[in-house]
């Protein structure tokens, strides 16, 4: 049988018993890789002894495209990075451009952005819960539960912006159009469903002994190591550090909003799951507050130039993305195009921690650990 190329394997000789480590290729087409991610696992029986991740299958040259298209055109590429929460990426991109050009954003637009971003965050976390449940093996039930609520959120986003996943709704200086008339009523309706959906998934997964037993104490991460690895977002917060850019470096209208930062205790897979679950609840609270505080006024800065040209300026704008610190480094050197745009993608940095997190665990757990990082390949590969 030709799948055993003996010369390439390390022979382990323990007291006359010859075993060889086996290399398993997981991905790029594999149900558990959430896209086109590939990792090469070296396994000793069922235990992972080494992991080599390969990324780049979805590399679309976002940064090059952002240099080649002008500020408004380039935005369409950015909501395809974290495609589960496109509006958050748009917000980050627009904030970077606004920072470069010193554009004021009307308060109403900020509220609209925050509201839709938080809905996107809920959406993305729902996706996590569904896919994570499937990784642990709940045969798609968590998936369909999560999908039900995601459809509702997508419908709402579509009503506002005209598109579901890639709305290109934000603009440097505000948002494209105002909210529809019955938005508040619809949004509250969707929020009610979201609370219900969080509760359902909580009961389905958290209330399940096997699920808890599988995730608990699995691959714990210390805060120091997480920081050194550049891990951010829910994975960092699960280690017990309450670091959320919405509070640590407040932007937009977050200073006016009341919400808590959920943290974990041990930084294990279960904590990562719980932190995300709790974050969805907090995000729903933020949306409610935004609905109450939503001011009138323009939704787009009326004094925008027809063609945006920015002289020498440099900024590194970061927001709390769904997966962690979503940073946009922007450098302008005149003209209507950016000289350089760089995405600091949270999934990319979180994923770089994977190879050291899975070593020493079972193959089945490696899948769960990968799932618990909640990567989006569009963001990893840019």
């Amino acid at each position: 049988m030709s799948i055993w190329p003996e010369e390439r394997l390390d022979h382990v000789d323990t007291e006359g018993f010859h075993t060889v480590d086996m290399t398993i290729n997981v991905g790029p087409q594999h149900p558990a890789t959430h896209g086109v991610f590939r990792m090469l696992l070296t396994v000793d029986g069922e235990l992972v002894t080494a992991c080599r991740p390969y990324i780049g299958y979805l590399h679309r040259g976002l940064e090059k495209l952002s240099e080649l298209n002008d500020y408004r055109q380039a935005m369409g590429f950015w909501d395809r990075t974290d495609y589960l929460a496109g509006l958050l990426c748009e917000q980050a991109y627009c904030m970077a451009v606004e920072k470069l050009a010193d554009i004021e954003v009307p308060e109403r637009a900020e509220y609209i952005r925050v509201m839709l971003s938080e809905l996107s965050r809920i959406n993305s976390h729902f996706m996590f819960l569904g896919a994570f449940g499937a990784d642990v093996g709940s045969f798609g039930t968590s998936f369909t539960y999560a999908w039900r609520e995601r459809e509702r959120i997508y419908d709402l986003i579509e009503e506002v912006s005209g598109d579901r996943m890639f709305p290109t709704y934000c603009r440097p200086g505000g948002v494209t159009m105002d909210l529809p008339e019955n938005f508040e009523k619809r949004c509250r309706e969707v929020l009610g469903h979201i609370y219900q959906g969080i509760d359902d998934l909580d009961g389905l997964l958290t209330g399940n002994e096997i699920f808890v037993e599988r995730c608990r104490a699995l691959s714990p991460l210390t805060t120091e190591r997480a920081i050194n690895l550049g891990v951010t977002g829910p994975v960092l917060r699960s280690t017990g550090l309450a670091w959320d850019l919405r509070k640590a470096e407040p932007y937009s209208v977050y200073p006016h909003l009341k919400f808590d930062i959920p943290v974990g205790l041990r930084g294990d897979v279960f904590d990562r799951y719980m932190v995300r679950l709790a974050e969805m609840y907090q995000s729903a609270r933020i949306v409610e507050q935004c609905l109450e505080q939503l001011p009138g006024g323009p939704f787009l800065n009326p004094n925008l130039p027809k063609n945006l040209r920015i002289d020498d300026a440099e900024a590194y704008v970061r927001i709390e993305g769904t997966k962690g610190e979503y940073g946009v480094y922007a450098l302008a050197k005149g003209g209507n195009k950016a000289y350089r745009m760089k995405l600091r993608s949270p999934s990319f940095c979180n994923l770089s921690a994977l190879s050291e997190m899975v070593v020493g665990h079972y193959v089945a757990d490696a899948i769960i650990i990968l799932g618990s990082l909640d990567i989006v390949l569009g963001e990893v590969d840019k």
Partner: protein
Amino acid sequence: MNGASPLPFGDVFFGWSWLDAIIRIVIVVLLMTVVVVYLTYGERKVVARIQQRLGPNRVGPWGLLQGFADAIKLLIKEDIRPRAADRWVFEFAPFLTFIPVLMVLAALPFARDWGVRNVTLGLLFVNAALGLNIVGIMMAGLGSGNKYALLGGVRAAAQMISYEIPLVISILCVAMVAGTLDLNAIAILQEDRPFLLLQPLAFVIFFTAMLSELHRAPFDIPVAESEIVGGYFVEYSGIRWSMFQLTEYASLWAFSIFGSVVFLGGWEFPMGSDWGWGWQLFLTFVKSLAWIIAVMWVRTTVPRLRIDQLMSFCWKVLLPMSLVQLLMNGFILVYDWPQELLTLTSGIGAAALVGFVLYRTARHPSVAHLVGSYKRAGAAAQ
């Protein structure tokens, strides 16, 4: 011991024993085919219902012909054999998995005195035959020349051999109470109460071990879709793949009939065998259907165990508990203590088993405490 009828059941068609056997086998195989086709349809419908979907509803009224459409598609699909595969091992594996199930069907009584053949040692025969399909599964795993398949095959072998033991012991407990290994006689003995009432612990063990033998969630480790992409049959296609599917559903059906005969009283309980074989067949099918739906229900709600959890559950929990059941039965039967004591001791055992599983997870803060804790931010994973 009035039920121990001589071979074969009832009258012999045309007086020729071999012709009679062939006719009976053809009937049972045809029945099995139809049942399997509708089991796939039924499973998809049940799962869809639980997952808030519609399930197949396009082919025929309510999608009733979906199973046949799938069967035709599978039959005319190309049968691919990978170059790395070991030819004969690969090609014979599906048949070797399937034949044991057919052997089981030959010994199962569907109604009083109605089956292919009444085997006096039916209980033993069914268990022995069901244990045989490990061979085919191992062959598929080794012969496919695929590492996922190899992992799946080895996992299946480890799991099925381990769970075989509590399964057989739990059946043995029933045989002790019944005093016979003849399935027909066992059913007749349950005229006034099913053995479920006498042996709840054995029932719980049997059901759990059966899930494992069938590779059903939460024990679907050998075929884990999100880890090893189907396990041992990952390289199969077309007719050979459908043989594995056929085996899966046919053995589910066989197990459910076997279980309902042994524990639920088959056709005998609650009406006795005076109502004619139509009614008896109906009872058998309803009971096995309940059994099957329970399996599907478990499948859709419960995530997958890890291989070490699975093994320790078998060797440290199920096996001792089944031995305890055996011992208790021995005392009670040898000293001729009242039968209520069987119910009592076994009931306590069943409660202890279920309680132990709950305790295992409740050792840390209880799961019930975790549910809903997402609303308390900061204490998310306490």
